[in-house]
């Protein structure tokens, strides 16, 4: 029932993603971005998507390519504007995409709350700033906090380094970033990995994402990009 599926292709891995879905997309800039799953999602054709990700695409690859394909209605992120975010910048300035800016720690904590069954939490970030507008404020022990609600995804597309055949995951260096949190926050978590190993080959003390959070895994050939392009 909850057993993780190991799939043969990225196309099979992204099958069934509906128009209008909220999709959590891993990565911090290009590190940890699930390039192959995003390419498959572009082929799959789902549109009118809400994308939750730290950035709004870099260069012309990954998330930027999905945006360029016109599939995204709204981006929820902390840092859309970067040296190489020309695709998003153009869509935003043309009024073709909606943007919700969320402080990076709130983005992470709100997804954690979704995964952890927390109804809402009082957070000190952004008090007294324009991003506090419309949020409930409360003083607790002399400090002001804003009430923040969970961000839940219909799907998460993330990248990890190695999975075992049960779906336990380990990551690599700072490519870990949002992956483990998003895996907990989505109804269906889809993971691309560099390698799938036999059950028992991962150290149980070092598993970062337990298999319970992982629905579909697909092995891909590692591809890395820098801001300037493929390398």
């Amino acid at each position: 029932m909850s057993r993780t599926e190991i799939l043969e292709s990225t196309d099979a891995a992204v099958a069934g993603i509906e128009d209008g879905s909220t999709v959590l997309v891993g990565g911090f800039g290009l590190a940890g971005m699930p390039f192959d799953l995003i390419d498959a999602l572009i082929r799959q054709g789902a549109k009118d998507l809400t994308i939750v990700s730290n950035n709004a695409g870099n260069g012309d690859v990954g998330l930027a390519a999905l945006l360029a394909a016109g599939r995204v209605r709204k981006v929820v992120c902390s840092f859309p504007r970067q040296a190489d975010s020309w695709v998003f910048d153009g869509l935003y300035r043309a009024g073709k995409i909606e943007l919700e800016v969320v402080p990076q720690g709130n983005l992470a904590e709100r997804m954690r709350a979704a995964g952890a069954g927390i109804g809402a939490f009082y957070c000190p970030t952004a008090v007294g700033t324009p991003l506090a507008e419309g949020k409930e404020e409360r003083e607790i022990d002399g400090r002001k906090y804003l009430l923040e609600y969970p961000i839940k995804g219909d799907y998460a597309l993330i990248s990890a380094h190695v999975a075992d055949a049960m779906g336990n995951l380990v990551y690599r260096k700072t490519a870990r970033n949002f992956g483990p949190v998003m895996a907990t926050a989505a109804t269906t978590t889809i993971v691309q990995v560099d390698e799938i190993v036999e059950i028992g080959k991962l150290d149980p003390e070092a598993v970062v994402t337990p298999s319970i959070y992982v629905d579909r895994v697909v092995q891909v050939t590692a591809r890395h990009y820098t801001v300037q392009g493929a390398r």
Partner: protein
Amino acid sequence: MTTTYSGVPTVADHRLSMDELAAVIARDIPAGAFVNLGIGQPTKIADQLPADSGVVLHTENGMLNMGPRAVGDAIDPDLTNAGKVPVTELPGAAYFHHADSFAMMRGGHLDVCVLGAYQVAFNGDLANWTTGGPDDIPAVGGAMDLAIGAKDVYVMMTLFTRSGAPKLVPRCTYPLTGVGCVSRVYTDHGVFDVGPDGVRIRETYGISAEELANRCGVTRPGPTGDSEG
């Protein structure tokens, strides 16, 4: 509240032992499910799961893919279940800390948990943490977290107290662990679905559904097999 018990099969000619009941529950746990078996009697279910069930056991003290009870040299004081009983680790296990373990539980990621109970109400209310007696030291452990956390909460218990009072009741008299959280009650005399639609008897052991309903004070069914109770 609707009670259904017409056409309910009596599938055993005797009241089930707790080991037999564990086997019944094991049969009903879907293959590949993530399951928490709490402490005490429900932990017996682990021994009754088919080898190829793919069921993954969670223990609240920070582990997935817990194995059977440890014996002899396999006993490791650093590896216990929620009842502090030494256990083992299966291939594919993962360890995590307590906040992560209960986030997993509270976040609704476990498919099934099975708990003991003092009382379960027809509407699914659960009482299993304290009798509320003057000399009782209250101890809740992870019971309240489990009660509201798993997708399906099953109870495993004897149906009657030693003095013969039913533990499946119209309304709990003991302090609650959770509200409307139980979906199914496995007992030595039969299995019940409970919840907002009331009680439904699924199967019985060594007793007819009608007699069981009478002993638990659930209302007789009307001609359609349903009645307001």
